[in-house]
């Protein structure tokens, strides 16, 4: 009988150990799921997949211009629900040489009768091109405020690197406008209600 009690005791110690380890694994995996968010972001930025580009100004990397080939850079601008802005680009596409600094003007106009904050979020396609598209100056680096009816023209200055893969002859740069919601004081009550309605 004593032997059996000993066995039961050992068993309960074993069970406690197993449960402890399982709970540790659980907590670890839950934390891992959240750790994946910054890891994913860092991974995409490092490899350039997902069309994410640096959102800080970069220096020119080349003085020379590679005149042996042309690359077409196309621009697409998209509005977004909840932000009554219009975004236009002076030209739909430009043909540039790698290494050649290029300036393109974008025009933002606030079509509402209130001032509000917005931000243009860029995306590059094909994604392999994104590390090779370097922006010296871009409106997308910061949030912007437009007064009611205001119209604003801001240039984008970019350069393609010489290392851009040979097979890429066309790059598409898409800007999508998004409202900036955390600047609550700037938002009209109507918009707040709209945001609340969609939950």
């Amino acid at each position, binding site marked *: 009988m004593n032997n059996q009690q000993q066995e039961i005791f050992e*068993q309960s110690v*074993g*069970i406690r150990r*197993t*449960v402890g380890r*399982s*709970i540790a*694994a*659980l*907590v670890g*995996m*839950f934390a*891992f*799921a*959240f750790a*994946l*968010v910054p890891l*994913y*972001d860092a991974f*995409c930025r490092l*490899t350039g*997949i*997902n*069309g994410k580009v640096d959102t800080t100004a970069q220096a020119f990397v080349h003085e020379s211009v590679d005149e042996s080939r042309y690359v077409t850079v196309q621009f697409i601008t998209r509005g*977004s629900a909840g932000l009554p802005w219009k975004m236009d680009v002076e030209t739909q596409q430009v043909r540039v040489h790698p290494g050649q600094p290029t300036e393109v003007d974008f025009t933002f106009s606030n079509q509402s009768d209130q001032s509000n904050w917005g*931000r243009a*979020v860029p995306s590059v*396609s094909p*994604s*392999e091109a994104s590390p090779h598209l370097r922006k010296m100056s871009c409106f997308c680096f910061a949030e912007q405020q437009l007064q009611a009816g205001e119209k604003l023209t801001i240039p984008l200055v970019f350069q393609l690197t010489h290392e851009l893969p040979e097979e890429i002859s066309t790059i598409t740069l898409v800007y*999508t406008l*998004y*409202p900036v*919601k*955390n600047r609550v004081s700037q938002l009209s009550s109507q918009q707040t209600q709209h945001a609340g309605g*969609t*939950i």
Partner: protein
Amino acid sequence: MAPKLPPTYPLEHSATTAAGSQAPTHHAPPRGLLRWLLTTNHKEIGSLYLIFSLIMFFIGGIFALVIRAELFQPGLQLVNPEFFNQMTTMHGLIMVFAAVMPAFTGLANWMIPLQIGAPDMALPRLNNFSFWLLPVAFTLLLSTLFMPGGGPNFGWTFYAPLSTTYAPPSTTFFILALHIAGISSILGAINIIATILNMRAPGMRMMDMPLFVWTWLITAFLLIAVMPVLAGVITMMLMDINFGTSFFSAAGGGDPVLFQHLFWFFGHPEVYIMILPAFGIVSVIIPTFARKPLFGYPSMVYATASIALLSFMVWAHHMFVVGLPLAAELFFMYSTMLIAVPTGVKIFNWITTLFRGSISFESPMLFSLAFVVLFTIGGFSGLMLAISPADFQYHDTYFVVAHFHYVLVPGAVFAIMAAVYYWLPKWTGHYPNERLAQWHFWLSVIGVNLTFFPMHFSGLAGMPRRIPDYALQFADFNMLSSLGAFLFGFSQLLFVLGVVLCVRGGKKAPAQAWEGAWDLEWTVPSPAPLHTFETPPVFKRPTP
């Protein structure tokens, strides 16, 4: 090879309980509803799980029939598209989280302690808690259908931003329900691991355990690894919806594709959570009715473990069309195809077990054989989907619907039914009515194939999934699918009838109900008394 005789085990423990003399530490169980609410007995909790799962199987089945009734003809006849979307979503959620997963947990509760010679689960009170979380979770989930704005309508995969920015207000309740169901699964998994690792009969090594126990052990590890990731994803959704974060919203610097990565990092192991225990059941039933030991037992264990490990490396094959780089497309294509190797090992082993066996075709065996054939069809269409250039054509079509229903319905669900017919004599002390069971089997096989086989063709022809209306050229295939679905659905009433009749009476079953069954559960009397193996049995390894 000489036919193997079942090893004999000492039966004193069951003799004492059968006589009604329980150990003095046990109180008389409360009666009525409280008995079921407070029970900590693994057999009673197992039965609760199975009954709950059966009810949910019918609720999810009714949702499926609403879908199939609407799709019987082109055009909108019965429901509006908004409600149709809620039906596809709820059908998926209920079948995955409330029918298939609890059914396997119920079988685990009933059979694992019996198969390893343990008196109960390691943590009986926790076991009670994990079960009673489920009715709470799914009452909450089903109640969202009656809320303003309706229930979840974004598909069972709840991709953001469809499930965040554009979701109905009830989504927060959906998240809460899924959290509760997830906690239930996790607690169940911890309990199963603790039981298997610590409570095996003296002398039973890991490599002596029946394969149902092995596959459940591996499944439990998968649950512990991925259910917290699901909990993380839905927590992020909750914060995006209610607290202004932007994990999945591009406007605030988040990324909707991240949702898909996180979801499928959970989702792919999840589909193996729903199939590995089925492998275990079939690996127990086929040797019984072939009257031969399982061919290649160690390779079965290693194959199961390999499938589980590989399941963490293939998630992006669900996302071939989101714009993955070429290297990722190739990696996920080949790693997915690699899974066919351990799966092939399993199918080979089942067939080799049957080879020159002395086979009889009782209902559990019929369901298991149908499992092997039809699951393999589902596996092959999975291989077709793994070819990433081809997947661009198949993605989100009825071909995908055909694929996963072939692995889940004649796969997981048939295995559960096989297990029920196999173990009913142990649970109730009576054999199920074989004639009724055979009718159920043949109607189910015909119904399943009539429902899902035409979906391959409508999918290849380009019919998208999750739509309430479709182009006229798909009309014939859809009519066949709907007829099959109603046949399959209504033939499940025979299953319920068979189970009810078996509980109430029938041919008496001896302790060893099947001639070729030699696992430990067949050494206790049928029906199994409430308390078994209070003195651990002595495990004797069958000697070939």
